[in-house]
């Protein structure tokens, strides 16, 4: 078998294994989708009345792309926590003693978490429709919007994979990623317009890739005011390009780093 064929075959085997867990522990998926639904409802109805959006856009239209982004980014912590769990239970030792492709466990893991994110986005979109969010663009653009969200989340999964392999305790992965992911998803245009942020936070938010993901998704779903002035800064004017640069950089750094760490990771 060629190296490529082996990597594909082994990664598929691992993906299948991970998805069996989702099937056997449905609570996993239930809670992974219930919390974003709760977020949609809370922000839409509790904060929505107090948060003004410029240009007369409804808050639901403004909010949903933000919720999509935040949720898929939070979803990437599952990658780290699951790998830490596999390390703890000795499964990584088992895999490493097999003549399989060294990247397959990580590829299989990130791919199954990507599929999980697809389901999550679908559930959130349905919830969004129920609370007044709409897509105003073509199907092609809307699909691109979903791909933008998924691609960024996929790159984040590789970052979290490295974290999980280093930290090695699922609970710690969750807590550690929380203190990073919370600020990067909140100091952004996710829930509120950034125009009134204090200056340091505003600059951070303008160059924060999460802002670009949200801005890109808003544009691709048509959740922006037509003819509104362009946002400040290159990153938010060309959000899709900016996001893909981040994705490329993340993958170029974290894929080799995570695979290297995996090959050296000792179990317990």
């Amino acid at each position, binding site marked *: *078998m060629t190296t490529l064929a*082996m990597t594909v*075959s*082994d990664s598929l*085997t691992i993906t*299948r*294994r991970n998805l*069996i*867990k989702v099937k*056997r*522990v449905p609570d996993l998926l239930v809670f992974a989708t219930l919390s974003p639904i709760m977020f949609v409802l809370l922000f839409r109805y509790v904060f929505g009345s107090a948060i003004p959006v410029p240009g007369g856009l409804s808050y639901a239209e403004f909010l949903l792309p933000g919720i999509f982004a935040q949720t898929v980014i939070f979803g990437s912590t599952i990658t780290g926590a699951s790998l830490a769990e596999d390390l*703890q*239970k*000795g*499964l990584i*030792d*088992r*895999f*490493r*003693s*097999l*003549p*399989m492709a060294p990247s397959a466990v990580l590829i299989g893991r990130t791919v199954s978490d990507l599929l999980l994110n697809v389901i999550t986005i679908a559930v959130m979109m349905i919830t969004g429709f129920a609370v007044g969010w709409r897509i105003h663009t073509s199907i092609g653009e809307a699909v691109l919007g979903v791909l933008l969200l998924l691609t960024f989340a996929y790159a984040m999964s590789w970052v979290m994979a490295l974290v999980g392999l280093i930290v090695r305790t699922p609970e710690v992965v969750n807590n550690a990623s929380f203190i990073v992911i919370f600020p990067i998803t909140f100091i952004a245009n996710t829930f509120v317009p950034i125009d009134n942020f204090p200056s340091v936070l505003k600059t951070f938010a303008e160059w924060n890739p999460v802002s670009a993901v949200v801005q890109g998704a808003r544009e691709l779903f048509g959740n922006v005011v037509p003819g509104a002035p362009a946002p400040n800064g290159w990153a938010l004017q060309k959000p899709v390009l900016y996001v893909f640069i981040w994705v490329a950089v993340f993958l170029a750094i974290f894929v080799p780093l995570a695979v290297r760490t995996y090959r050296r990771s*000792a*179990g*317990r």
Partner: protein
Amino acid sequence: MTDAIVVEGLVKRYGATTALDGVDLTVAEGSVLGLLGPNGAGKTTVVRILTTLLLADAGRAEVMGLDVVRDADAVRASIGLTGQYAAVDEYLTGFENLEMVGRLYHLPKAEARTRSGELLERFDLVDAAHRPAKTYSGGMRRRLDIAASLINRPRILFLDEPTTGLDPRSRLAMWEFIAELADGGTTILLTTQYLEEADRLADRMVVIDRGQVIARGTGDDLKAQVGGQRLEFTLARAVDLAEVAQRLRPLALEDARTDEQTRRLSLPVRGGTEALAEALRLLEGSGIEVLDVGLRRPDLDDVFLTLTGHAAEDAAPADDAHAEPVATAGEAR
């Protein structure tokens, strides 16, 4: 006979502690080697290096003539490993676990499935084959783990403490499975803390302590070094220990070992049941209350005490930092 495993001058350090300090050993093809030692002696480190999971700092190791570092992939394809804790995916059924491992050994799908079915039958897991491994008992998990390591019909099998934590019945069953594999010609390297286990399964033994080989040979060789049997008494009162030791002195091969906390006394003797009868006569009329008395063969503790002058459990593990959390994790289950 050729050697299936050759280890020369293996050294492994973790920071300031030395886990392995120049270990040499060989395992003849088709034989079983028992690697004996207390917790933290370095047994698992040897297994991890031989199974390509860990890199040694010095020395070399070959498995089937393949270098474990340079030819790591080829080594992985020809070995099976069962680690200290059953590495099974608890969300997958027994069958799914085996099929997955078979696929990762790159067996064609049909073969992986047939082989999984065979192994489930062989390891008495047919009834549980389609239940998630989560529902399995400790013994069942361990059997599933061994089954997984056999899916590719490896010629060399590494078993790291295969019966630790099992109840006596599961342990006996596991011994039978291992003996069967050995009879079938599989070369086995088995680590254990129990002399009895190595004695029963291994052709030859290597005893390691603090990362160094302190004895090697057959079970009989080792027991000849230790000698005799042990008389063991448990007393009602710890204060009587000294008097019992005093009264039994004529029988003793060496000084008695006493433990105030458990109120136990262990005495090396020769002559088996006769020594036991004689000991009871010597205690007659002393008024000392004996709760329990027994005769047993030397165990690893006795081997250690004789060879190193310290008991196995105070062996001050060389890779302590590494071994301690492992022990806790195991007990937590």
